[in-house]
């Protein structure tokens, strides 16, 4: 954490190499979060690029207030995804996107079972409400703590636990239906 603080302070002084280190550390998680929310690889790349450029440009406004830098990045990413759906509303059929893009899931390796399982879980995940998706991705895929998730989504930890419980219940139901 101390090392991260030092990097942020350097980045705030305009040292792009320091921000580059933060970028390398957080890019895979932020990209994954965005990809799982928007499903399209191209859209995920566009939004991820926008998120990191935006955070770099506004790094001076970041303040250490007891939560990690990652929560701040997730918050920017979360808002970017909301904006994405707001602007794309009524122009893209979500179901068709799921069908089209599912095969394109960017997972390393050619193990068919793994790819199939990933696609199945992803499809089930897409049926959840936006907040439920966000909580599941942050908590169980990207391994954030409840406190970090609550900061990123600007909700109380209690609310996060409630959403998490409901999300897992709905996800399990979806996966069971797929199996039948």
């Amino acid at each position, binding site marked *: 954490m101390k090392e991260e603080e030092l990097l942020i302070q350097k980045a705030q002084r*305009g040292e792009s190499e320091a921000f580059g280190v933060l970028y390398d550390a957080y890019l895979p998680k932020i990209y994954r979060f965005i990809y799982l929310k928007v499903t399209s690889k191209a859209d995920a790349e566009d939004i991820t690029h926008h998120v990191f*450029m935006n955070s770099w440009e506004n790094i*001076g406004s970041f303040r250490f207030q007891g939560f990690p830098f990652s929560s701040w990045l997730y918050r920017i990413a979360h808002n970017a995804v909301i904006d994405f759906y707001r602007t794309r509303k009524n122009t893209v059929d979500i179901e068709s996107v799921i069908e089209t893009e599912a095969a394109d899931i960017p997972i390393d390796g050619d193990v068919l079972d793994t790819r199939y399982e990933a696609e199945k879980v992803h499809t089930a995940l897409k049926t959840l409400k936006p907040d439920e998706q966000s909580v599941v991705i942050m908590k169980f895929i990207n391994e954030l703590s409840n406190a970090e998730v609550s900061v990123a989504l600007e909700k109380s930890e209690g609310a996060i636990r409630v959403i998490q419980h409901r999300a897992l219940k709905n996800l399990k139901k979806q996966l069971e239906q797929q199996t039948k």
Partner: protein
Amino acid sequence: MNQNLIQQLKILRDIKPDPIFAAETRRLIMDSRPKIRSAPAFRRFAYFGTLSLAGAAFTVVAGILMFSPSQNMAIASLESAAINEELKSLSINIQLKDISYSNNADSIISSAITEIGNTDARHMNPAVLKNEEEDMISEYTDKSEEIDKLFNEILN
């Protein structure tokens, strides 16, 4: 079952960004350095500049208030108790002034009335006038007899 579900979700951790995309975005961030560097510096300058201006303005106002000769008056004029006191004393002053005026007027009027009513005044007193008249007659009478005596001496 939840444990199994979480294991299934963990498969999605293998999702990774394209290395070419990652490198390109990194390069663009590195290139945008000059624009970013100025932002925090400007914010710091604006922040401390605003603080300094506010401090200077406060010092000037405090200085004016502390060293101004009308400071007590200005402060006193803001205290309701002082204003009430001032109003009370103002009212008393007016009343005292009225009393003083009334006293003076009374004495003037009373002396005028006394003077009007005073029949002992020498120029108005009938007794004095009578005496004066008698004096005049006696004087004339005395002088006429003397003149007659002088005429008779001349004629004789």
